[in-house]
């Protein structure tokens, strides 16, 4: 009986394990927060019934590290990357790790928002501005308000080692003449902390551990709608922006499903889902979510993608030297 029981349990368990990792038709690595990633995937599955989609969520630098470790081990699992910034994807394109695909939906997008050869496409506009807790003593209007004495020890910001948007943000602000790396040094002197991603900043400002935060726009605007005591401002100098691009990995074994995903997320329907989640869609003519100023009112600071790509390593090091962070 022992033999039968063990044989049976071995069989049952193998079946369960095999079932637990049933081959998905598409694997997506994304930096969208869990609920948004799920909504995106749900929308795609509704538009393409019968496709099994698996997704993994982490901050852009972390999910990239995971992917690179898998590529190193010769076993990359992802088919689609949907991450914060085009800089990372530009690097992957140059390394030959992305597949080119010309989506028919691209005609509805500004040409600056996608790669001409079709390696990646921007899906939305995410700006980084300032959020504050409504109990805070000051209503910040400028980036420089965060280095004032009123904000001493009360500022949180995401670490570029965790968040892709935070890296672009740092590269954008340090490119502004009146700010530069000195601005970040003053932030450190003023007791600002940099750790974790944008979610961590949202949490510490909304919960009152900190009063002010540098954070991506949609998080506080959405939480405010749910009743959280937070406000978001677009500082007068302007905001940095990332475009959450999507791309297909050249190692994919599910190219057809991956192309369908690109087409879906760029389609009017897919873009409306993002709008509904509180993002500014990248596609033309869809407007902005509730709580945002009109798109032409938002002043986006320029960043040179080619330069940003070249100096990424160095900028990360400068940042960690200032803030002494490891993650």
């Amino acid at each position, binding site marked *: 009986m022992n033999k039968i029981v063990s044989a049976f349990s071995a069989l049952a368990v193998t079946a369960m394990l095999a079932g*637990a990792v049933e081959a998905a038709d598409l694997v997506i690595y994304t930096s969208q927060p869990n*609920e948004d990633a799920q909504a995106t995937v749900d929308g795609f599955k509704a538009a393409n019934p019968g496709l099994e989609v698996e997704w993994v969520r982490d901050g852009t630098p972390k999910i990239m590290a995971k992917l690179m470790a898998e590529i*190193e081990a010769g*076993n990359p699992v992802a088919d689609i990357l949907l991450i914060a910034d085009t800089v990372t994807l530009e690097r992957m394109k140059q390394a030959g790790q992305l597949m080119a695909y010309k989506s028919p939906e691209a005609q509805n997008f500004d040409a600056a928002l996608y790669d001409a050869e079709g390696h990646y496409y921007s899906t939305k506009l995410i700006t980084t501005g300032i959020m504050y807790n409504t109990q805070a003593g000051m209503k910040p209007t400028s980036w420089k308000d965060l280095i004032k004495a009123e904000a001493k020890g009360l500022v949180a910001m995401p670490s570029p080692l965790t968040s892709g948007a935070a890296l672009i943000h740092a590269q954008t602000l340090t490119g502004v003449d009146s700010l530069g790396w000195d601005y970040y040094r003053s932030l450190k002197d003023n007791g600002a902390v940099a*750790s974790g*991603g944008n979610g961590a900043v949202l949490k510490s400002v909304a919960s009152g551990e900190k009063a002010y935060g540098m954070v991506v726009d949609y998080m506080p605007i959405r939480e405010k709608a749910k009743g959280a005591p937070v406000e978001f401002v677009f500082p007068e100098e302007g905001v940095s922006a990332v475009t959450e691009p999507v791309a297909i990995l050249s190692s994919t074994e599910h190219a057809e499903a991956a192309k369908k995903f690109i087409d879906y997320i760029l389609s009017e329907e897919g873009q409306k889902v993002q709008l509904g989640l509180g993002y500014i869609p990248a596609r033309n003519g869809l407007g902005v979510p509730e709580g945002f100023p009109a798109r032409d009112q938002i002043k986006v600071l320029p960043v040179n993608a080619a330069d940003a790509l070249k100096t990424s390593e160095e900028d990360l090091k400068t940042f960690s030297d200032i803030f*002494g*962070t490891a993650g």
Partner: protein
Amino acid sequence: MRSSVRSGNSQPRWLFPFVVIVVLVLSVLPLARLAWTGIVSALRGDAGQLLADPALWSATLNTLATSFLGMIAAVILGGSFAVLLTLFDVRGRSALGFLFMLPMMIPPQVTALSWIGLTGPSSTLLKALGMAPPLGSPQPLYSIGGIALLFGVQHAPLVYLAMRAGLLALPKEGVEAARLSGASTVRVLLDIVLPLAMPGLVAGAAIAFVSGVGNFGIPAILGIPASIYTLPTLIYSKFASFGPTTFADISIISVLITLLAVAGLSVEARVLRGRDYRTIGLPGQAAVFRLGAVRLPAEMLLWLVTFIILVLPFLALLAGSLAPAYGVPLNLETATLHAYEEVILRQSVTRSAFTNSVSLALASAFGLLVISVLLGYYIVQTKSRTAATISALAEVPYALPGIVLAVAFILLLAAPLPILGFSVYGTIWIILIAYLSSFLAVSLKPVISAYRQFDPSLEEAARLSGAGFYRRMRDVLVPLIAPAAGSSIILVFLIACNELTVSALLWSAGTQTLGVAIYNLDDSGSFNLAAALSVLVVVMVVVLMLILELMARRLPAGALPWRR
């Protein structure tokens, strides 16, 4: 009668090779690979850059500080509970004992999340009570002291168990003799009980220290936001920013963690050396002292502590899971089950995490059952030096911090397997193999103690009557060890289901475990989802422990870790 030439022999021919292969794959190979990479990269000079990195040394210092302070907290908490519940006439001892054991089985990241919900300006619970600290107050737990405090709570049961075992073995005669000679209760405690309880206390303290060194969940949630890194979280962050020297770095840090753990254990051995605690007389019922007038206050204190370390954090977790958004005060109108809905019905991540953890836990529990029944049989029956070595080797992976084991398996299995040509890295199988290795000792222990409990003449009689190995297994051995085997299944299931440290390094798309899902949800800022999932996990743990508790009477002594 079914019999073959070898039917009367004690062991089938394949048993020894089987045992060797199991120990080789689950213990020797991964550890040898880790040591090898550590030594090679040290010799190649890769270590230079890492060893010159101040981050490594501050992490080492943080590890030592948190583990040491955590050990002290655990000794105070666990020691006083052990003494009061074992030696004094406190009412409701078994209920208190069971509740005090719970933190040990609750996943550390859940403990950390619930305590965060309890303190600081973010506390939904304090907000609901109108007692939250003002804006800008730092979260007090994001500190060395906070990490140490939670280590203390989490590891106090280990001290409690180790001390209780010693206290239960106290001979009644000694205490009675002292009493008859007119010694006061305090005198008896100091002169007779304390010296005899020392080995248990030291052993418990050592286990608490080593557990602190290897703990990942608590410093990950409390330390990383404040940039306080311990060695396990440093490995995690090195791994999360993968680079060309990552493998060399993490193998060296792993070796460092192992050295700290070994150092902790050898301090224990040193303290206990030269002390001989042989007692004369029967280790009767624990000597019961009367508390007299202070009984009620003592009982109230015990319940109060239990309330603070167990009920309050759970309430905070529950409050966090019901809040609609951060910073919104919780009351009947704002409370929502949205987080539960999202976690149970919508998030495919949490659903697949449930499936993965349950499948992994079942596979580990049943796989290890088969392995333990055979391995235990070999170890108990063969009284040779080889058997002793094999038994020791089987124990090693459990004694090592999970993060070290995970690193060892990554190094061993990252490259494609020889002959087969594919890699199990990034699949669920690498997690399963690491679980089998890590929990082998958990499963083996109850089975071995059950084998030792029954008279070998039973099996001999069956053998002399010509029963073959399978027949003896089926008709004699398995029925006798069944209760122990049952408890080992549930125990492994319980631990594997809540595991975080090993899977935090080994997970990939589609193979997230429950522990990883909770950690990642919190990391992405979805505290309410993380809290809801944690509440579900706590409920599951309590139910499983209650089932084991009900089975306890039929189990051999020592089968359940919290009822030694």
